[in-house]
């Protein structure tokens, strides 16, 4: 029996030894471990990893652990890490979620690092920084500027005998072009922003002067849901005619390489301007980008310039200063930016912008031109960041859009559903 006792003690001892050995991982030997996380695409991953290698070469005592997945998986992962208290040292952030993280004090104020010169923001225009500020504190540094865009295959249009889109294209022009492309070549059209249809409708509703969300964050920002009905109805109509790809197929999450544009199933796609690089990488035909078509009776442009993404330093990081050094390198190092080439959007620091601009390949040149075009009269001011419940709202919006485009509910019912469910999610 003594032996029985001994063995159970032994077992417990093994447990605790494993605990003790597992407890000490990383660090300790003079090196710093930095975890850097971003949502990506193959092009971005390749370039970012190259920059990480460059940084490690200059800083041999820093070991960087990259973490990358796609947009959806990224936020699932980040949310688990928030719950676990194990966010990385540098995380890529989005305008939609930055406010939520800042108000919960999950990301650190980066002002001290800017003041001490670790992060050099000399000459950066305040308009580029304001998106990352909450109550005067800098919770994220913009990595570039973005705007929504329509990307199309001019070759396909030419083959179909359709003129290329102009800057004053309306939704009617778009629908007419889509019909003609389908009639003469059989090539279809993708619905608006299938990964996040809210982006498509936001562009639409902003043209009527209303924001997507009420400034209070407690309700939707628009009163007239007939616009939403029209947004749905246009797509439902095109699907019924066979012109637009049914939601059953077009809403399946795919990588750019597997997407309809790359596979020749669509002549057009809707993206954020910085995604033009990875989209062009995935498609072996030359592409062009332009404004998203406008609604017929709009009061102002719906497009706005948005910080494409931020780098933030989570509050739980124990290596904030090292993290800040990396952010600075990422923003300012000319060689690093020659690799990145503005894939995350048009760079914010003037020198880097000039360097990159002078060296960019064709695809990137189009993004620069597009962003300056949008900045010159085709943009309206950005709305406040999305409210905290936006994650749930976006999922609901996408679900209802799918239901409507699949014909399960009518456009009017879909619009009413967004209004009632949206308000109940936001008011919680």
């Amino acid at each position, binding site marked *: 029996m*003594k032996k*029985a006792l001994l*063995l159970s003690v032994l077992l417990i001892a093994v447990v605790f030894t494993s605990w003790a050995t597992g407890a000490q991982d990383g660090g300790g030997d003079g090196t710093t471990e930095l975890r850097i996380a971003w949502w990506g695409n193959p092009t971005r991953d390749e370039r970012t*990893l190259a920059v990480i290698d460059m940084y490690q070469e200059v800083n041999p005592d820093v070991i*960087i*652990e990259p973490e990358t997945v796609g947009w959806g*998986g990224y936020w699932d992962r980040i949310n688990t890490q928030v719950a*676990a*208290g*194990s966010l990385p040292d540098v995380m890529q952030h989005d305008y939609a979620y930055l406010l939520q993280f800042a108000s919960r004090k999950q990301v650190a104020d980066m002002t001290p690092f800017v003041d001490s010169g670790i992060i050099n923001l000399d000459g950066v225009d305040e308009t580029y920084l304001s998106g990352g500020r909450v109550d005067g504190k800098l919770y994220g540094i913009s990595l570039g500027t973005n705007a929504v865009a329509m990307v199309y295959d001019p070759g396909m249009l030419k083959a179909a005998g359709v003129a290329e889109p102009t800057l004053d294209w309306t939704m009617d022009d778009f629908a007419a072009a889509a019909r003609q492309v389908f009639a003469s070549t059989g090539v279809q059209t993708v619905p608006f922003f299938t990964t996040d249809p809210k982006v498509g409708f936001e562009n639409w509703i902003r043209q009527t002067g209303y924001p997507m969300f009420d400034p209070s964050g407690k309700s939707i920002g628009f009163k007239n849901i007939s616009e939403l009905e029209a947004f749905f109805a246009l797509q439902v109509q095109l699907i019924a005619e066979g012109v637009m790809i049914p939601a059953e197929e077009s809403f399946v999450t795919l990588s750019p390489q597997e997407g309809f544009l790359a596979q020749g199933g669509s002549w057009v796609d809707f993206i954020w301007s910085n995604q033009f690089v990875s989209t062009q990488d995935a498609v072996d035909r030359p592409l062009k980008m332009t404004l998203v078509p406008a609604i017929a009776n709009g009061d102002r442009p719906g497009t706005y310039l948005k910080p494409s993404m931020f780098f933030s330093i989570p509050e739980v990081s124990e290596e904030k200063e090292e993290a800040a050094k990396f952010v600075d390198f990422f923003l300012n190092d000319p060689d690093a930016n020659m690799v990145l080439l503005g894939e995350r959007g048009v760079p914010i620091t003037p020198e880097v912008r000039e360097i990159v601009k002078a060296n960019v390949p064709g695809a990137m040149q189009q993004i620069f031109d597009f962003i300056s075009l949008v900045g010159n009269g085709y943009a309206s001011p950005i709305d406040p960041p999305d409210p905290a419940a936006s994650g749930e709202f976006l999922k609901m919006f996408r679900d209802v859009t799918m239901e409507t485009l699949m014909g399960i509910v009518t456009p009017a019912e879909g619009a009413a559903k967004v209004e009632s469910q949206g308000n109940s999610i936001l008011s919680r």
Partner: protein
Amino acid sequence: MASKSRKVAGKILFQVLMFAFGLIMIYPILWMISNSFKTTNEIFGSASLLPEKLLIDNYVRGWRYVGRLTFTQFFKNSLFYSCFSTIGVVVSSAFVAFGFARIPFKGSKFWFAVMFLTMILPYQVIMVPQFIIFQKIGWINTFKPLIVPMFMGLPFFIFLMVQFIRGIPVELDESAWIDGCGYFAIFTRIIAPLMKPAVITTTIFSFYWRWEDFLGPLLYLNKPKLYTVSLALRMFSDPQTSTDWGAIFAMGTLSLIPVLAIFIAFQKYLDQGIATTGMKG
């Protein structure tokens, strides 16, 4: 004569049908393996099991994963997790099972019933509070939340081993008692050696379950350095960024090799184990 040839025809038909159905059953697996040698464009829209040419590239590219981490690390992690947990769960389960099966102590029946009830308790009930407890004591991003509970035995295995021990004649213990052995000696000298078949079966299944475990690593291992093969495969095949299907299938195929190897080596025990214990594979 006619009836005999009809019988032969029937037998042949039976074999053909059984084999055809078997082929359908393993087709998906063969498809995955063959895809691991194809280019991504070859994979799209093709049901063929024969790659145009055998590409080893997929394995090289896949193994490199992203950044500086390679699948070497993930296989190491998976092996560490699977082996360590399995040793723990088998030893402690056998130990506990002996207590329940051979010692008629006070409360034995009660605790056995409690243990039986926990078998039908869905993991979801304890998932959230366990996560919070482990988070509070700083066990996140270690293997402890995954391994330590295994050292406490698994009710399912304990139950099976209790059944097994009850099948061993009590006379053996009694003669040992006369020789002056205590419970511990009876366990180590008499029962444990006889438990070999049960131990092998539980070892195999424990290894399988740990190797294929996904939810546990998903919750507790948030750093790429700690990913198990399952988790790395999921991240690798993220629907928004994954394009390199050849490499994904190559790593998927590799992840099945330990499972297959054990299956081939221990098939006899597996069949027995499942048949006698009603265990799910």
